[in-house]
């Protein structure tokens, strides 16, 4: 298979995976339990994505990233205290970078 054919098939399969979920559910009246379930899905996925990026797979194991943990904790505390998005990000990234260079 040449590269152009591979790119075409990847484009189609990726787009289908995106549009199917949106179109099947769009405009449908969800029952209360399903609606509640889908309200919790983003929370679960965001929490999983955060932890997934703290745990870095290596050859035959998993390494815990302390800079990512410290950065996330600093962001969590800052946004809890000052309730402002951008400064919380800046403080988190600064804390993560400091942890990377000094720990």
């Amino acid at each position, binding site marked *: 298979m040449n*590269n*152009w054919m*591979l*790119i*075409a*098939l*990847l*484009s189609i*399969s*990726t787009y289908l*995976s*995106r*549009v*199917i*979920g*949106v*179109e*099947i*559910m*769009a405009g449908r009246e969800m029952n209360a*339990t399903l609606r*509640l*379930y*889908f*309200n*919790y*899905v*983003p*929370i*679960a*996925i*965001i*929490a*999983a*994505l*955060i*932890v*997934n*990026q*703290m*745990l870095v*797979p*290596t050859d035959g*194991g*998993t390494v815990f990233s302390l800079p*990512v943990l410290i*950065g*996330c904790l600093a*962001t969590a505390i800052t*946004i809890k205290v000052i*309730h402002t*998005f*951008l400064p*919380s*990000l800046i403080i*988190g*990234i600064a804390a*993560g*970078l400091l942890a*990377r260079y000094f720990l």
Partner: protein
Amino acid sequence: MNNKKQTIKTAFIESLPLAIAIAAYGLSYGVLATQTSLSLANTLAMSLFVFSGSVQLVVVAMLAAGATATSVLIATALLNLRNLLYGAALAEGLSHATRKWRGLLSFGVSDEAFVLGSARFQKHGPDPLYFGIVAATFYLAWITSSYIGAVIGGQVDPLKWGLDLAFPITFTALLIPSLRGKPVIATALVAVTITVILQYVTPGNEFTIILAGVLSPLVGLYVSRRARDNE
């Protein structure tokens, strides 16, 4: 009109930190892609038409390792499974758009756009314009950076600039304000537990996020039902 302007401004400001991080990954993709059998035109076309960091990086890694096209397609189909979940969760927030626009907006469904979009929809209700601006910002960041990466090669180190921290930190800033009530907190804790266990048992497993996303909300539902029964 002012509301639209405000939405566009908010979407742009909120997507900018993630767009910078996406650009860092785009540079890496561009650099790696040119070290495989992909030409500059192939590299750019994949960013234009596939527009998926995880899929494209896996394709490049597999091609570099000599994988067949069939195995690349199977692996990416598994990676794309989570888009079904994202699409279903975003559907209500995009339901005010016409079918044609929804078709276009669906092209922007990704990890980062899902996180920003779902947080916005939970606070403000359906908002296709917000999602469109976010997706367009990410798209521009992705195609521009993959082109630059393919042209300039490996002269940028994302670790040195802390760009790898931008994803988890932005997600944390979006998650913390949403953690209200026992069902939500239980959902997040179970997702964390599932992810940690799966990452240690089967490192790098692409099903981790899907399993956490499908199973953890069931615990949230259970806690919610128990709280209601106890009232």
